[in-house]
């Protein structure tokens, strides 16, 4: 979007692309803008980020509203925020337990699955709600306002993170019952949470932008996400593909492999003997998360005006 936040210095308005203008008749300091076409479609990044920061409170309130409106007409209301991922984990626990003949009496396995599915829910709901919010025009924000459009998926990321943090509280009793223990590795949780959100945000921006041109993406997305879940060590242990071989190598290249193996090591407190170290897995996941977020962000903002036209 061609939009610049003003730089105000005394009584001279300085335009980011070099044009200067003096103030009006009454001498009041007014914001000024010049809108011009840019070849890449990417606006000046510093100004775009400043404007995005200006609307952070809106993103937070939007996110709160989104959470409040979910399940508002049900009897259990907000309790569903905790129940949904727990039931999701329970279903997979029964399903995988029966399929693998591993039995249904392992609380450690249940805790492992429930937590990983909380993480998965965080990732997938950022993607799904962002794509859906952008497709629906973000309550007129995308079609009628100068708000940086990235605020809409950002609000979806806030919502999903908020729910994940609540889920963590609900998970604590299960963690203790399963005797997964308390570890120094827990200190990695804030960093891993940030990287998971960053990665999910990047993926969401890419899908939300493609979906504007190709509406079939939103239909394809649930199937893609389910397949991705099965290929990720969320419902199976990451140690299973430590051996060499093409399939195992491919499984380890999957960005969520490093994410889930890191989360598992953090929760269990130790690396598998001969397996990857926590630091290495976090580093690999960072190498996925940061470029994904940067590419997704640039792709999204370069196509912002398309959201107004095609919605």
């Amino acid at each position: 979007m061609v939009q610049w936040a003003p730089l105000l210095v005394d009584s001279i308005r300085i335009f980011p692309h070099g044009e200067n203008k003096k103030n009006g008749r009454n001498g009041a300091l007014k914001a000024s803008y010049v809108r011009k076409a840019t070849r890449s479609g990417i606006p000046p990044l510093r100004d775009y980020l400043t404007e995005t920061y200006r609307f952070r409170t809106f993103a937070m309130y939007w996110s709160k509203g989104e959470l409040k409106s979910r399940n508002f007409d049900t009897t259990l209301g907000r309790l569903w925020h905790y129940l949904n991922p727990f039931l999701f984990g329970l279903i997979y626990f029964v399903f995988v337990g029966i399929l693998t003949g591993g039995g249904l009496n392992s609380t450690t396995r249940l805790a492992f699955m429930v937590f990983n599915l909380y993480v998965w829910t965080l990732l997938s709901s950022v993607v799904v709600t962002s794509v859906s919010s952008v497709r629906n025009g973000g309550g007129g924000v995308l079609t009628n306002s100068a708000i940086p459009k990235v605020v809409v998926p950002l609000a979806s990321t806030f919502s999903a993170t908020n729910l994940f943090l609540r889920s963590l509280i609900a998970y604590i009793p299960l963690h203790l019952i399963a005797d997964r223990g308390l570890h120094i590795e827990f200190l990695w949780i804030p960093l891993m949470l940030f990287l998971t959100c960053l990665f999910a945000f990047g993926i969401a921006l890419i899908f939300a932008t493609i979906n504007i041109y190709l509406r079939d993406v939103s239909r394809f997305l649930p199937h893609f996400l389910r397949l991705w879940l099965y290929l990720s060590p969320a419902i199976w242990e990451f140690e299973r593909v430590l051996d060499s071989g093409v399939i195992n190598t491919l499984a380890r290249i999957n960005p969520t492999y490093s994410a889930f193996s890191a989360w598992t090591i953090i929760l269990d407190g130790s690396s598998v003997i001969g397996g990857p170290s926590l630091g290495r897995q976090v580093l690999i996941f960072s190498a996925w998360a940061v470029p994904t977020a940067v590419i997704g962000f640039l792709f999204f903002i370069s196509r912002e005006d398309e959201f107004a036209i095609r919605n």
Partner: protein
Amino acid sequence: MSLRSEIDNAIEIQNLSVAYSAVVAQSGSPGSSGFRRSTKVQKINALSDVSVNFPAGKVTGLIGGNGAGKSTLLKTIVGVLKPSAGQVSLSGRPHLLTPGMGFNRVLSGRENVILGGLASGMSLEEVRSKQDEIIEFADIGNFIDLPTTTYSSGMFGRLAFAVATHVDPEILLVDEALSAGDTAFRKKAVERIRGLVASTKTIIVVSHSSALVSEMATEAVWLHRGKVRMQGQVDTVADTYKAFLDESSETAQLQSEKKE
């Protein structure tokens, strides 16, 4: 660009062209047949080489028929659409008055005042300080604490108008939004707009109706097929536009009679 023009104009538009691609239905194809697509991408030149200035502290009416480019011009001024060529210079932050922008229909009117205010660019402190005033202006009684899904379209429009016009923007863009509410509220809305003008706000009102523009504006710009056809005092422009419409309808009638 002279200093005088900078002082007098809130918006200066120079050689502005806006073109975009839109997905449209294939002509003569009511639906897809097999794998054949029923839509196609079409390039639309919504504005071409438009140069026009909007004076500061005045209400300017933007008139023209369907497809004249009025909404495109407003959206380019506000920053939703980007210019394909030319430029738009603004002296002040623009705000497009959009009923219910940022609103969440499940939330109450009171919560939506906060959400809508933030979406319109107000700070949280600003919205909170104006919340009572906005609610009083909307005048929807106890409904303010009920979800907006329970509102009539008139009530929703009043609340949305109240939020949007308490934003205190330097440049307010109104796109046919004054039709919200009943006659009494419309009078109140017009008074509110006049109040904003009195506090030196620059306002652009878009309407199909030259009567509405005449009522609100002192200046007018007539857009026709993406180009400026006329600009000047509102009465002159509105009269010329009305004569054009009458002539067009007469011509259309004559052509139709000839065919028969």
